[in-house]
């Protein structure tokens, strides 16, 4: 049995899934107690455990808002930030608090130290941080992924004095100093909160005698072990959309194609894309609370309208959303919504269909339109907005910069061949969406617990960035802390082998069994470097374990 839990803003959903065939054995829904996330989750787990033997539980997967809410609600540790930025753009980090300090020294793009910091600087900073009752620290250098020596020195010096010291290079191999600073800051900021949550979970499981491993869902649609998440809690932010996306891929039939996935909520409709069945990612990393980070995340965007959007006439024009004024009239609300239009069109059942019809008819009368036509117009406009949002998103995704002639000429673009929809009005809207989008639309069963299913079935993901420089004779993989000597003859073939084995062991560390599915090379290049009439290589390889499902469910026809 696999337990999957998705904690949303108001509710927490849990499922128990049979590990051998993906059957949903049990499901529960509970309100979230925002003052005690652990208690909310633990109550849900206990509920799910009823009727399940403890020994049968293979794994427990959680998608939580613990870190996300800590950031958004500013319930974070007091963080001191030490930067070695050297020359370049003057990004400001003063919004990160009073304790952001620069040290001298810099490292260049090859990872060659230009000059180091003065040891006295760190001594003074440490004393100041302690005086200012700093709880956690982040140390970040420009190009630290290429050479982390400064960050390591600073971490070693500060380690014993603060609860957490986050080193920028450990969070991502990607180059982007300002994002690295913010990612490290957020990691340090949520460490305490997340650790406390994780320890509560561990303690409770121990008390109950449950030995199953716990995994936390990440924003990229993969999981990380609880231990891994304690070290890099920033990776657990914004996992909700990933849960929704992974749930949809689990529930839908076709797995390999380019698809667009829609999650129609009350206020918004979230969009995702799959390219050959693999989620399309945010190009650089996700943004949270205005902080652009290096946290890898599935691409998602929203259309500002959902089933409960406020429908009204403004200056003779029909407006839908973006605000929501409560439930649809059909479900006890006071204001007309797209849901009421669906009820009027007879494609959706409702509790208060009479009141709903009256509300719609009265607005239709105002503009002298037959109510049936008016209901059709509301749904027509709704679908048109969704189509425009899809088109704009695709335009953006398909114009991401490319850097090789081959990519430019090949022009691989994401072209959805079908659409998957979940959410309250999914089924009722499907045929209208089909007409508007000109694509087959599928609405899976059990969509109301798609997020919990997604959390349950997601498997670990990992990404590593390898750089081998045969002139400097250095190989680096920041994500796994590898900085080692290589020979002058190191080549691309060996680099690729190494990258694959490294990403697989990163995956194993996160709990994937010996055979690691989904490990692949995503980027590879080898550049000739010429220096004083000798040629060297600058080799770059990226590898990942791509998001996927631990087991493939057979879709149940609804």
């Amino acid at each position, binding site marked *: 049995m696999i337990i999957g839990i998705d904690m949303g803003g108001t509710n927490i959903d849990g499922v128990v899934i049979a590990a051998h065939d993906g059957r949903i054995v049990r499901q529960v829904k509970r309100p979230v107690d925002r003052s005690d996330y652990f208690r909310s989750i633990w109550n849900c787990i206990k509920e799910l455990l009823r009727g399940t033997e403890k020994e049968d539980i293979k794994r427990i997967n959680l998608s939580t808002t613990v870190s996300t809410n800590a950031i958004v609600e*500013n319930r974070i540790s007091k963080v001191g930030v030490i930067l070695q930025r*050297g*020359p*370049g*753009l*003057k*990004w*400001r*980090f*003063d*919004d*990160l608090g009073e304790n952001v300090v620069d040290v001298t020294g*810099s490292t*260049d*793009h*090859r990872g060659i130290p*230009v000059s180091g910091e003065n040891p006295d600087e760190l001594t003074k900073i440490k004393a100041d941080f302690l005086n200012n009752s700093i709880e956690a620290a982040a140390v970040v250098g*420009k*190009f630290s992924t290429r050479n982390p020596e400064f960050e390591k020195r600073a971490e070693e010096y500060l380690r014993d004095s603060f609860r957490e010291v986050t080193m920028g290079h450990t969070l991502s191999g*990607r*180059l*982007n*100093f*300002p*994002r690295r600073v913010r990612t490290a800051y957020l990691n340090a900021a949520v460490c305490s909160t997340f650790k406390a949550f994780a320890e509560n979970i561990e303690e409770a499981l121990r008390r109950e005698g449950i030995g199953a491993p716990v995994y936390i869902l990440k924003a990229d649609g993969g999981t990380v072990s609880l231990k891994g998440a304690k070290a890099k809690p920033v990776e657990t932010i914004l996992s909700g959309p990933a849960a929704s996306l992974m749930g949809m891929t689990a529930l839908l039939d076709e797995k390999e194609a380019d698809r667009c996935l829609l999650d129609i909520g009350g206020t918004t409709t979230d969009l995702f894309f799959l390219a050959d069945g693999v989620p399309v990612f945010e190009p*650089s990393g996700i943004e949270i609370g*205005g*902080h*652009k980070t290096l946290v890898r995340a599935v691409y998602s965007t929203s259309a500002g309208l959902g089933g409960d959007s406020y429908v009204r006439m403004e200056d003779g024009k029909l407006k839908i959303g973006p605000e929501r004024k409560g439930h649809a009239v059909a479900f006890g609300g006071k204001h007309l919504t797209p849901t009421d239009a669906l009820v009027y069109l007879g494609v959706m059942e409702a509790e208060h269909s009479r009141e709903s019809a009256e509300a719609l008819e009265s607005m239709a009368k105002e503009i002298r339109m037959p109510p049936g036509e008016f209901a059709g117009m509301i749904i027509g406009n709704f679908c048109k907005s969704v189509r425009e949002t899809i088109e704009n998103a695709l335009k953006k995704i398909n*114009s991401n*910069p*490319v*850097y*090789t*002639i*081959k990519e*430019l*000429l090949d022009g691989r673009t994401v072209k959805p061949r079908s659409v998957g929809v979940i959410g309250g009005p999914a089924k009722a809207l499907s045929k209208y969406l089909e007409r508007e989008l000109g694509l087959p639309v599928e609405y899976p069963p059990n969509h109301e617990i798609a997020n919990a299913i997604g959390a349950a079935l997601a498997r670990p993901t990992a990404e590593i960035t390898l750089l081998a420089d045969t002139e400097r004779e250095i190989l680096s993989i920041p994500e796994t802390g590898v900085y080692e000597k290589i020979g002058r003859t190191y080549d691309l073939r060996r680099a690729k082998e190494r990258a694959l084995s490294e990403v697989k062991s990163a995956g194993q560390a996160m709990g994937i069994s010996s055979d690691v599915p989904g490990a692949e090379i995503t980027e590879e*290049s080898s*550049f*000739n*470097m*010429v220096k004083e009439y000798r*040629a060297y290589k*600058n080799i770059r390889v990226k590898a990942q374990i791509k998001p996927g499902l631990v087991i493939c469910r057979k879709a149940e026809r609804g």
Partner: protein
Amino acid sequence: MQKGGKRMKAKNKLGLILFPAFDWAISPTHPEREERLLYTQDQLLEEGIEDVEGIHFFNPLIATKKDIDRVHFCYPGMEELVTESHLIAAGGVMRAFDAVLGGETDKSFALVRPPGHHAQRVVYGDRGFCIVNTEAVGLAYARRKYGDMRVAVVDTDCHHGDGTEDIYWNDPDTLYISFHQDGRTLYPGTGPIEDLGGPSAFGYNVNIPLPPGTGDEGFQYVLENTVLPILEEYKPDLIINSAGQDNHYTDPLTNMSFSAQGYAKLNSRLNPDIAVLEGGYSIQGALPYVNTGIILAMAELDYSGVAEPDYHLGRWKQSERITGEVKRISDEVLDIWRRREALGQKLFGGKSSVKRNRRVYYDTDGIFESQVQEFRPCPDCPGVDSIKSRNDLGASLIGFTIPRKACPACQKAGYDLFEKAKGLDVKKRFLQDLVRDEFFAV
């Protein structure tokens, strides 16, 4: 929390076409190889340029045969000479024009390779790593698409842009200004002050040859005292900067002492609408910093923090002797600019044909070419011109150009001349009709 600190916003919206062509090289260890923009890309990524609000990245277009035909006579033909990488580099510049003239951004910078400013009207092969004049192709495309305009091309590459000079030699609507290391000390050897343009555009080719060792101070002097006053008077609709980066003190092929700060300041004062990367082969020590500096200057962001790791103020200061020489050259150029009409009248007044003999060396491909250009001044338009050319590999051609603003009589004359050239002993005849945007090669 303060909101302001999280964002960085460009004052000028800037379009960047960063296309490093990581799968193309002239040869594996040639300076124009895959690695050339690798460290620039690293630097720009690490600086977080992609997150600056108002800076947008665009992929290049791919130039078509017609785009190339507007500028070049390719022998034996475009297909034989021009690779996909050239079409994309030119397409990158075309995209830069679209960004600005189509209103997406205020300015744009095409960081593309290979460069183009040594590619002349006749193309037998590669010269100075160039086959297609990317800026000229971009500008011709833009003029066709957005209408004619008065343009100044300011070439800050260390090498004289002999290709660009050749293309606009007789075009009064395209002012070409080049600062470069004196041709007596560097490839391609051209670019003396006395080369001032053809009879219809005399004075609109401005060469400013500078002595080896010229540094930030010298470039600044030339810009403030000569280039800006000329531009002030010319009043171009558009300024293009051929932003070669080999005046840098670390460049392996040249002998100048310009810095990243110097380049950024120059760009900021010049205030070009469009910049195009040309040469520059100090790919680790210069390009990452110079490109960052230029981008910030174009976006009107604070570039004062950009510096090479090994830059020390004072170390690259030019000598007193150079300061004096730069001042003398600069003043002479300005003096000639002011007297250009009288000088032109004296040289070409009353002439119906002006001939010019040239020898052209293709260093990359080892070809020698000799050509005779003929300009036919007309009172109503710049007049039809032609190039008769042959090279030491036995190729020969004649090409006629009917300029964009040709009068009906000259347009007809162009076709007549092309027809009459049938009898000539040349392997290929070309006609560029830039009025109708039609091109013939037989």
